[in-house]
């Protein structure tokens, strides 16, 4: 049941001359939440963006190595990055709602993927997604107000809802709770837990507690290297690498 969903081998990422990700091997399991932790600037977002080829959009970025999704090389020429991204959804570190209405923000993905047969179904998807993003109550009366007029945390949840609406098989979440209060955080964590039943989730977080709460696997990055990867419990209770230990106990940053 817990097969490998994504398998990365020897991944290198360069931004121009900067070597941002250094030879990372990692396996992301299906129906599992994997947490990426590590100090700011260590390459978590960069690596995350490799997994659905979002780095393609950065001119200076160059990716090497192999990344297999369900055994297929996602950097293969035959692969359509669009289809890949429909399968591997993403919540970005900086909330980026479309300058459209809240409704359209959510409905966009389902529309282009043909997930709804008619308007009623679409409405249903939008409501469900907003509920899952724990923002329904706050926006249900202003679905047609612009998404850019929301507060920081609301925008973040909107983006989570938007990503969930397309029902990806893998969801990459870059610090999805950074602007959320504890309750909202809890709700998002519940969402993640729920998603895990069918899908695979990768979450970048700076909160050890959160990593410990939601993830089964944890990867610790440091200066572009994947230092340690293993069961969350083991990483937090019994780290093998001393850098991991220092980080968890708050000694390196």
């Amino acid at each position, binding site marked *: 049941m817990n097969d490998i969903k994504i398998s990365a081998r020897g991944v290198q990422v360069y931004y*121009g001359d900067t070597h941002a990700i250094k030879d990372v091997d990692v396996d992301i399991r299906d129906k599992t939440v994997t947490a990426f932790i590590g100090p700011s600037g260590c390459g978590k977002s960069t690596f995350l963006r490799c997994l659905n080829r979002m780095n393609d959009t950065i001119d*200076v970025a160059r990716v090497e190595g192999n990344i297999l999704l369900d055994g297929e090389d996602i950097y293969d020429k035959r692969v*359509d990055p*669009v289809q890949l991204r429909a399968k591997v959804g993403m919540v970005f570190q900086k909330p980026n709602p479309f300058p459209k209405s809240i409704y359209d923000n959510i409905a966009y993905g389902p529309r*282009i*993927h*043909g*997930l709804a*047969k008619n308007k009623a179904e679409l409405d249903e998807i939008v409501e469900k997604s907003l509920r899952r993003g724990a923002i329904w109550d706050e926006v249900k009366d202003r679905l047609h107000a612009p998404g850019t007029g929301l507060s920081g945390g609301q925008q973040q949840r909107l983006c989570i809802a938007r990503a969930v609406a397309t029902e990806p098989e893998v969801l990459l979440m870059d610090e999805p709770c950074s602007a959320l209060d504890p309750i909202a955080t809890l709700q998002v964590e519940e969402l993640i837990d729920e998603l895990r039943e069918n899908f695979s989730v990768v979450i970048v977080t700076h909160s050890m507690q959160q990593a410990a709460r939601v993830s089964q696997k944890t990867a610790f990055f440091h200066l572009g290297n994947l230092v340690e990867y293993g069961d969350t419990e083991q990483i937090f209770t019994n780290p093998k690498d001393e850098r991991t230990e220092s980080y968890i106990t708050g000694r390196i940053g």
Partner: protein
Amino acid sequence: MPALWLLVLVLVIGIAGFIIGRQRAMRTAQGDIRLLHSLPSYYGSNVFLSTVIPGLLLLAVWLIAQPLVIQGRVAAMIPEQGLSDYGSLSLVMSDVRRVADGLDLAVERGALTPEAAGSIRTELTDVRARLGAVGVALGSNVQPYVLSAAQSYRAMSATGSLLMSVVVIAATIAGFAVSVLRTNKDFRARNAVEKVVLALLLAAASIAILTTVGIVLSLIFNTIEFFKLYPASDFFFGTTWSPSFGGGSELGIVPLFWGTFYISLIALAVAVPIGLFAAIYLSEYAGPKVRSVAKPLLEVLAGIPTIVYGLFALLTVGPLLVSVFGQGGMLGVGWMRGGTAVATAGLVMGVMLIPFVSSLSDDIINAVPQAMRDGSLGLGATRSETVKQVVMPAALPGIVGAILLAASRAIGETMIVVLGAGAAARLSLNPFEAMTTVTAKIVSQLTGDADFASPEALVAFALGMTLFVITLGLNIVALVIVRKYREQYD
């Protein structure tokens, strides 16, 4: 079948294809669009495109190729005598084509029966008169060999167009069938359609290249002709421009380029600051009301015909400048001898160019994200500091584009120069002196009275060509500089 009807038919099949493709896709997915690879309309579009494109391509190629092929075969039928009569094969052939077209028209108008058109003989019929009656211009009486060539030409064309109809329709239906058959829920319709759209986008971008080729081709022959008559070194390095009808003209391009440069410079010196400040004010300071009124009003400046600007320069601005800078003027400097001057034309041209800078820049500045402004204001910057140091640098690439566009228009402008700057080519630094530009001289030599085969008239083409090459060079330099700048920054 005439090409137009063929075209309509192909399009109709294509539209039917759209509907059928869409339906078929839905059917293969049992009406559940979630099972489809792409949205249903992509399947429809895919069938439409696969149906229409082969047909249209074939049609286009055929329409171009058929006359060439037939011409080659008909040309082989022309006897030796034809060449000596006409002087060249192409002249005979143009007559053959004209006669053939005439026969077609005669048949169409009922002046000849189809059989008669194929069998009339010059010995028996005055073909020229018969064709003239239906409105076909023939340069001379029709020779027997021309007529028979024209008749075979018609016969071949008829066979050709029949064949064309068959082939085009076959290709259309084949495209239709193949794409409909390929339509099933797993077919990557979106990718296929997007590839075609991308090709269309590329084709649109390539029109610029075709235009360039067209311009070069329409200038080059006369330019070569000019250089046969007039030494290139005198043209490129001569510092005197004085054409005259009787020959012995001096056609040095240097003063014209100097005039072009000088006038454009002054025009930009007017348009860029005014346009930029106006754009900044509109996007950063003005309220929505002011903005929604002032911007379109300024845009009217771009729509006033240039002849009005020319008259404005001639009647208003010129005399005004003279009253300031002329002899006995307000400043008492006496720099300006007449109303027509570089400064007059430059000033007025600058006014015309204001909206090119202001409107485009305003849009670009407006597109800079508000977060950038907030960041700067939050640090205690004034709005002008924010504009100058944060907003403008972010908007710079677009603004540079707008300024280059304005500069290009300045180089290409004619009427304002003719009326505002005068017609005399001169090399001088005094901006209150009359000068003229390359463009103005292209127009004046082209519409002048000189013998059209003389260097004085042909020089228009050489001027156009030279200007074209030089601006091309400048644009390449600009591109390289912009690239360099961008690379350093990243």
